[in-house]
């Protein structure tokens, strides 16, 4: 009996400190106080005693128990002698305490940054950093007493609304001025042309210039002007941090481009990527177009419709679907019974992105070549059949030479498109694997790398220089290609 009594008293004594512990009574948040930060302020019912720990828990739903929340930070009550006391603004997240009067003092810091407040503090006012902007979060404070008991405060909600983007004020007047002067000069040009027409007595075209004015204007302002601006930009040091006060720096950006580690690698892969894709597109497209090119083929339109699907489906969706197929847990491994992770392997990823782009591009070539095949004269083939020419010879000596006039521009167009095919690489691998910090990744092609330079590094001037270099490459390539094919055409 006695023993039971003793235990009861002992337990009561144990419980006693809990009821006397400092409990967080008023918790308030003043929301947005800075970039990804919210302010939090609480006070306790009694002055906090040494050894108490206040833990700040956050969650995206109301906190009833801490199991569904994450611990953000903690404030310890303890001996503050020999500790640092950084002033307001000297620490990256400010925290102050009050001992009941109106004065707020900066908290003390341990070497690892933990905030420490002296015993007797009754209010704490902290800035919580690292809060995702635009999302509502719920905050609660858990006070843990030296004896081990803990009390969770009620939960409050807050959010950091400040934008993730640094706000840079750009002077708009130069742009408005440029656009305005372009518009004005085009109007004047059109009026002059019209006047010249009028003087020559071409009155039927009275409205012609009026009709083309909107299109010409839109094209000049939104295409030719950005192109010229981009070329100018490539000679400046424009970047994310100082836009608007950029200055001309000559060819420095182009030197940066050429001296980028992996410049040759990314150019080489872009060429391989484009050539392999175009060859495969035309090869398979030709094969399928020939297979479809027969009037007595049963189910011809069904086949054609099915084969058109990769063109009809939005390309970003197809690419993401293929990415899912190639995931280690994806269906490719189920189909093949293998255990591959191609996207994580530099060479595998290269093969994969090329395969996906081949899948995407065949229908366009198939349909274009189909159209060209149907335009070929039928009697030519009839004559060949009478002469007993074999199928292969018919293809080699009749179909191919006659298709050439269609295939040359098609392949050039395909090359330019593939060269600039952004979606596939960006969505499949995002240039990875093996992303370097200062160079292209292993599946980056030129355009995806330019995107990274411009919008991840924010180096607009360098990106503009890359664009100019890419454009020059395309011009040189197209020109040589046209020259070469024209030359061979003249021979045959």
């Amino acid at each position, binding site marked *: 009996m006695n023993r039971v009594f003793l235990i009861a008293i002992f337990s009561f004594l144990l419980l006693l400190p809990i009821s006397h512990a400092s409990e967080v009574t008023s918790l308030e948040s003043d929301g947005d106080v800075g970039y990804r930060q919210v302010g939090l302020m609480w006070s306790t019912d009694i002055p906090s005693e040494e050894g108490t720990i206040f833990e700040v828990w956050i969650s995206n739903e109301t906190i009833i128990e801490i199991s569904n929340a994450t611990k953000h930070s903690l404030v310890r009550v303890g001996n503050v002698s020999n500790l640092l006391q950084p002033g307001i603004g000297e620490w990256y997240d400010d925290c102050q305490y009050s001992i009941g009067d109106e004065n707020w003092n900066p908290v003390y810091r341990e070497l690892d940054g933990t905030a420490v407040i002296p015993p007797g503090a009754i209010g704490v006012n902290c800035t919580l950093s690292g809060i995702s902007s635009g999302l509502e979060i719920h905050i609660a404070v858990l006070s843990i007493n030296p004896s081990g008991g803990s009390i969770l405060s009620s939960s409050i909600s807050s959010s950091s609304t400040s934008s993730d983007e640094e706000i840079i004020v*750009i002077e708009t007047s130069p742009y408005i001025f440029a656009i305005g002067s372009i518009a004005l000069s085009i109007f004047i040009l059109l009026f002059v042309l019209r006047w010249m027409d009028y003087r020559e007595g071409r009155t039927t075209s009275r409205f012609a210039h009026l009709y083309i004015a909107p299109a010409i204007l839109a094209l000049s302002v939104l295409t030719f002007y950005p192109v010229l601006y981009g070329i100018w930009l490539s000679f400046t040091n424009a970047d994310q941090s100082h836009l608007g006060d950029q200055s001309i720096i000559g060819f420095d950006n182009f030197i940066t481009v050429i001296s980028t580690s992996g410049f040759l690698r990314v150019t080489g892969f872009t060429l391989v990527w484009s050539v392999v894709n175009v060859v495969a597109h035309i090869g398979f497209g030709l094969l399928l177009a020939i297979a479809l090119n027969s009037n007595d083929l049963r189910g011809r339109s069904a086949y054609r419709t099915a084969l058109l699907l990769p063109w009809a489906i939005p390309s970003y969706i197809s690419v993401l679907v293929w990415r899912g197929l190639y995931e280690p847990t994806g269906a490719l491994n189920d189909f093949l019974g293998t255990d591959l992770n191609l996207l994580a392997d530099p060479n595998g990823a290269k093969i994969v992105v090329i395969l996906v782009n081949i899948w995407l591009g065949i229908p366009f070539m198939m349909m274009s070549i189909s159209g060209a095949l149907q335009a070929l004269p039928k009697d030519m083939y009839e004559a060949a059949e009478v002469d007993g020419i074999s199928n292969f010879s018919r293809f080699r000596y009749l179909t191919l030479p006659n298709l050439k006039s269609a295939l040359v521009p098609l392949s050039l167009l395909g090359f330019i498109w593939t060269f600039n095919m952004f979606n596939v690489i960006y969505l499949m691998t995002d240039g990875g694997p093996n992303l370097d910090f200062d160079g292209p990744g292993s599946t980056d092609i030129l355009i995806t790398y330019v995107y990274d330079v411009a919008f991840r590094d924010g180096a607009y001037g360098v990106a503009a220089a890359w664009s100019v270099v890419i454009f020059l490459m395309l011009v040189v390539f197209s020109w040589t290609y046209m020259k070469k094919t024209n030359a061979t055409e003249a021979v045959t």
Partner: protein
Amino acid sequence: MISTKTVATEIHDDLASRWYVPAEVESLRKLYPIVVLINFVSLGIFVLRNDSESIFSSSMQIVVSIVILFLLSKLDQGQRFIRDGVIAISGLTILLSVLQFSSGPQIIIDYWMMLWTTIPPLLVIYSVSKPIVTLWASGNQTVRSAELGLFRNRKVSRIHGMIFRHIALLHAVGFVVLPILWIIDVAVSPGNSLGGDFFDAMTLEHFNHILSSESFWIWTRNSIIVSVGTTLLGLALAIPAGYAFSRFKFRGRDFAMFSFLLVQMFPGVIILVPYFLVMKALGLLNTSIGLILAYSVTALPLCVWMLKGFFDTVPKELEEAALVDGCNQNQVFWRIILPLSLPAVAVTALFSFLAAWNEFLLALTFNTSEEMYTLPVGLASLISSTGQAWGDFAAASLLVSLPVVVLFIAFQRFLIEGLSAGGVKG
């Protein structure tokens, strides 16, 4: 004509019968290189699987197929023993593949490989043991039978050609349809698993989830605003320009048309960065207007060329008659040309709508805040690095692409014609 006839009479009858090879043998000679190729593909798959037993049997298959290919090329009149050898080795091949596939995992690709290792040898046995081939191989055939055979070859080889076409097309269709079937399966499978058997468990949870999620509707709204805006603005710009290019001779016409073509050939990359900066300066980032402006101008050259092509087909006499009757130029355009070319305008509208609906890069660059995402960027964000909601993505992508695909297929003829008018001819 005369020369052909003389040559024909000079050819000895015996020679004519020597020319003759039955169509079956010809077709098998074409088929077997493909069989060998596919056997190499199978070998590759087994190497990836690291399945040494199958690697061995697959290598055997390759050897045997090459032997059959070689024998088929040597098979000729009076080569009866080669014919028997071909049949024997084909039987051996079938035996090999039965042994190979009697055990081991039976997955889709295995069935495909099994078909390619059993059916060709069966075909070899069937065709080579046909009386007509047997007769030919034994060398006992008469000139008359060779002539009949040549006559028969035409029909048979046409049938075989059709079969070849069907095989090639079926493989292509399989390659096209497999990812689509798979994504349908992911959309109706519970959870976010990517593997598993096709259609083993069905649920509509992902559809419910995506249709009740607020962001999906926001993205859809943004996409509709942008696409409709692009279509309207694009047409407003392109119709008058296309008409002017089609009908009038005026100063600067050739230069203007050339500049439209030039833009068509321009890679978008060179514009992206300055475009972004101009839009940023004008405060058009994260707005629908910025995207509408950009899209309608990007699609403009092609639309103008498409419409010009269509306007060219409208007879000029109609206009002249209307002018004589007292219409002015504007009335002619609005009352006569435009109603006549409504179908063409509809196709152009569809084209610019689809282009805006599917565009990804500019939308990704310009509209970075989540409330302004269009569907492409929004759907891609479902598969971000933080969380890969494959099931929701699959459901959403089916919902998004179905109307687009139906429209595309329904109007494929016109769209492709228009595209080739603008893209290839120019």
